[in-house]
């Protein structure tokens, strides 16, 4: 705790998107979600509830918009005014995009949300004072605030239900912000195992809860800097680069035939989640 410490370590405290002097090494967690494979079945969302001790708020609070689902499945319709949804709907799993230059991080007055060396956007519950500025500045609105004290609420976790709580994840009390962590408790456990064996985490060794449950395997998650990882290969095949706000492939006049994109890329949050566009058959 010193001014010099503050000045010297500032860049470490407030590490933003990859810069040349601090590349992501050896980990950069990232995700890719294939919207063509996503069926909108909600298994991921429920897996997230189970893994991360997310409170079920009940009907009344849901009505007030106080739901806590870290992972929500959005359903979009065609907007061309057709009579029937005859091209089906479009589903989009949305959770914290773990932005590299996260809008939420810069505005938190107490630095409760930071960037980790792994390229995650951390949320430190016990530091949070609940100003909710991060949520106000989040373009994706994926941060959820504890409007009530759920751990002591018997409707949410009666004694029996509370035995299901995952001891690796803190149960958030009232007044703090929370959001998807990319299942950091699983990452930490996997890294600890790998570290003891003197290696880095292998591809497939760690899965997020949503990825693990997804019946169609639409979600892949892994270490973007590991060339062996599926995520790395996907990002590369889709020519999506993490530190760009406009991908080279999209600059072509005729557009790209690749499906990879990131939401609100042009606002420069540099999200760590790449989506693959949904495909629809043109022959029918």
């Amino acid at each position: 705790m010193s001014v010099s410490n503050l000045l010297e370590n500032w860049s470490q405290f407030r590490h933003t998107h990859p810069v040349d002097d601090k590349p992501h090494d050896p980990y950069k967690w990232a995700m890719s979600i294939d919207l063509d494979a996503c069926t909108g079945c909600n298994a991921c969302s429920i897996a997230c509830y189970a893994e991360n001790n997310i409170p079920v708020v009940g009907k009344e609070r849901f009505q007030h918009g106080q739901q806590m689902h870290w992972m929500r499945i959005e359903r979009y319709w065609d907007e061309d005014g057709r009579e029937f949804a005859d091209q089906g709907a479009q589903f989009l799993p949305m959770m914290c995009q773990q932005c590299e230059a996260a809008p939420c991080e810069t505005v938190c007055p107490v630095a409760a949300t930071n960037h980790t060396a792994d390229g995650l956007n951390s949320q430190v519950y016990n530091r949070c004072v609940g100003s909710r500025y991060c949520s106000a500045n989040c373009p994706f609105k994926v941060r959820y605030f504890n409007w009530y004290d759920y751990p002591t609420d018997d409707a949410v976790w009666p004694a029996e239900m509370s035995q299901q709580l995952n001891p690796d994840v803190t149960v958030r009390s009232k007044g703090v912000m929370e959001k998807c962590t990319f299942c950091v408790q699983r990452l930490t456990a996997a890294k600890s195992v790998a570290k003891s064996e003197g290696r880095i985490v292998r591809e497939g060794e760690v899965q997020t809860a949503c990825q693990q449950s997804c019946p169609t395997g639409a979600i892949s998650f892994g270490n973007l800097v590991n060339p062996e990882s599926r995520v790395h290969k996907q990002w590369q095949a889709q020519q999506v680069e993490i530190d760009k706000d406009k991908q080279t492939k999209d600059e072509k006049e005729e557009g790209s035939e690749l499906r990879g994109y990131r939401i609100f890329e042009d606002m420069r949050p540099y999200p760590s989640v790449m989506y693959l566009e949904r495909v629809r058959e043109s022959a029918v």
Partner: protein
Amino acid sequence: MIDSGIDRRDFLKVLGWSGAAVALSGCGNTSVEDGKETVVSYVEANDYMIPGIGVYYNSTCAQCDAGCSINGRVREGRVLKLEGNPDSGINKGKLCGLGQAGVQHHYNPDRVREPILRNGNKGETITWDKAYALIAEKLTGVKGEEIAFLSGGVSGHLKALLGNYLESIGTKNHFVYEALAPVGVRAANLKSYGVALPRYRLDKAKVVLSFGADFLGSWISPVHFSQQYAQFRKGMDGQRGVLIQVESKMSLTGANADRWLVVKPGTEGVLALGIINALGTTSGEIAELVKPYDHAHVTKETGVSASQIDKIAALLKLRSPSLILAGSAVEGYAHGAQNAAAINLLNHVLGNVGKTIEAPSNVPFPQLAPIVGSTASLKSLNDGLVAGQYKVLFNFAANPVFTAPGAFKFKDNMAKVGFKVAFAHYMDETAMQADLVLPLDSALEDWGTQVPEYLADGMQLNIQQPLMEKLHANTRSMGDILLTLLKQRRADEYKNFEDYYAYLRGSLLQNKGALGAGGSDDDNFWNEALTRGVLKISSSSATLADKAATSGLQLPKAETADAKFPMHFIPGVTASLRDGRHANQPWLQESPDPLTTIVWDSWVEIHPKKALELGIVDGDVVEVTSKSGSIKAQAYLFPGIHPDAVSVPLGRGHEAMGRYAKGYGVNPFGILDAIFDKETGELALHETRVSIKKTGARVLIVKDEGAAGGMQMGRRIALRKTTDQVDLSEEV
């Protein structure tokens, strides 16, 4: 995994780790504290039991009957989370939301904990001994035909044991009831393919034309089909599979289709025959059959345009093999089985049988094979109840008071039985009517075996084992209860089996050879079986009929609309709530319906055009009235439904079953008319006609979707390309 001295069963007792001490991390102390909390150590521990590190055990999911194998994470003696078991060919490590909510079935605060003797609305707790004695007493002097046993679908050793018990009390009245079972499809398949459920191979198909089969949501084995679907979408040779869904109300699968075709309810078979006609590749009997189904006729009946029919026919011709599915939406009519048979015909015409329709495995142990439920059996039970035929009624794993169609008046009829025993997890609607309620172990505390009806990956026997010690001391395993009851009758025969576990282990070991482990040591075999959670058994395949059966195939003429009840009523089946037996699992209640994103409540889906006509807007409370009753629910304008139909999802509207289920939504079962499939005698779920009326009240719909209502408002959020715009060849 299990490697040393402690027996698997004792292990649970050893793990006497106090649950409460570690449960609510995060709301306890906020600063360093000393000497406040108690840490409880193991008394004895195995090497692999390390506090803070999860142990994984395989078991079988009991949330639906697809038979997915689960992998439960256990820490400090508490099961925390369920994942899929990678060793199971059915779900290959994946698990749907419904399955994952199984922990909330186990930890549900509203479970029945003691045997209850009920008298009207009052109940007193009694001991198990007293309960058993009471059953014995009530059964004395009662003839076998005066006893009825109602159950859901059962398989495995429980089925064998149950069969033995019924035999011992001399009754043949075993009614196996499932409110939502593909009975019509089974019947049609038997005629078309020679088997009730062939193996569907979506992964091998290039085109899937599905008539109302919600295989991604709730149909037969959704997790398995979802995995096949992923493969199908990736396609072969870079050619992505095409899914066309034909139905009157959009299902989850419909929402994922390349083309979703809305048809007039009940005319799916007509469209299928129309497509055969448009293919023009048939001759003889079939050609004769489809001749009347020209474009004009089909368009008039179904509402599908001629050009669309031609497009589909062209696509089916071009890309082979394809797969045509007849699902639950087509069988819910008085001509449901016929409908399905007409659709199955397409598979024959396109030569898919044997390619994407494969022969299923036979179950080598018929005594373990599942008995599948139907609504027809509920009807015969109900008829018996009306006639006052039964003096004792047992109920297990079914909730007919909730799920029987309103026209049955099941609750009233059930009251005529002198002594009603319910084996129950919760005080559900049926248990509320019972005289004796016997609490069951949860599926995560219980032993068992299961043979799924749909053997997605060859014959397998699923093992169910407890993932943790019992939560409540006075619940019992259904197996143990049956064994005790059997001992009342045939003490000699069963005296060697101390409990259901011993029975299970004994009979599996007895058949070790047939289970493919002839040479191995008993303990090794047993431990191996428990570790893997599934026993894969080699077995012969059934044979498929190679010729299409067209005889007797007849679809009804278009009917005239009923002036009083002009609308078709489609009970919606959602992936998470199904027939409502899990409505008390809060994750499922709060998990938004994928299509409407509504939570915690029921809704009436109405097409916007129809709504405009009737002056209904989102959130208007409308009354849906059929001949058998009426329900009131909020209207939701939905572009995925036929304008002449309304749909209300099943599963909500409980009047009992605890805090998370009671009082949320309405129960559409209650307004179903008693109309039956002419061929199978099955309840025609979709045949009810209704009228809808605004009540004048309006509510705010509780849903996840925001004010933009599923629009992206020009922001690039969920993007889409058509196949001619993408290059999928380089994808990983």
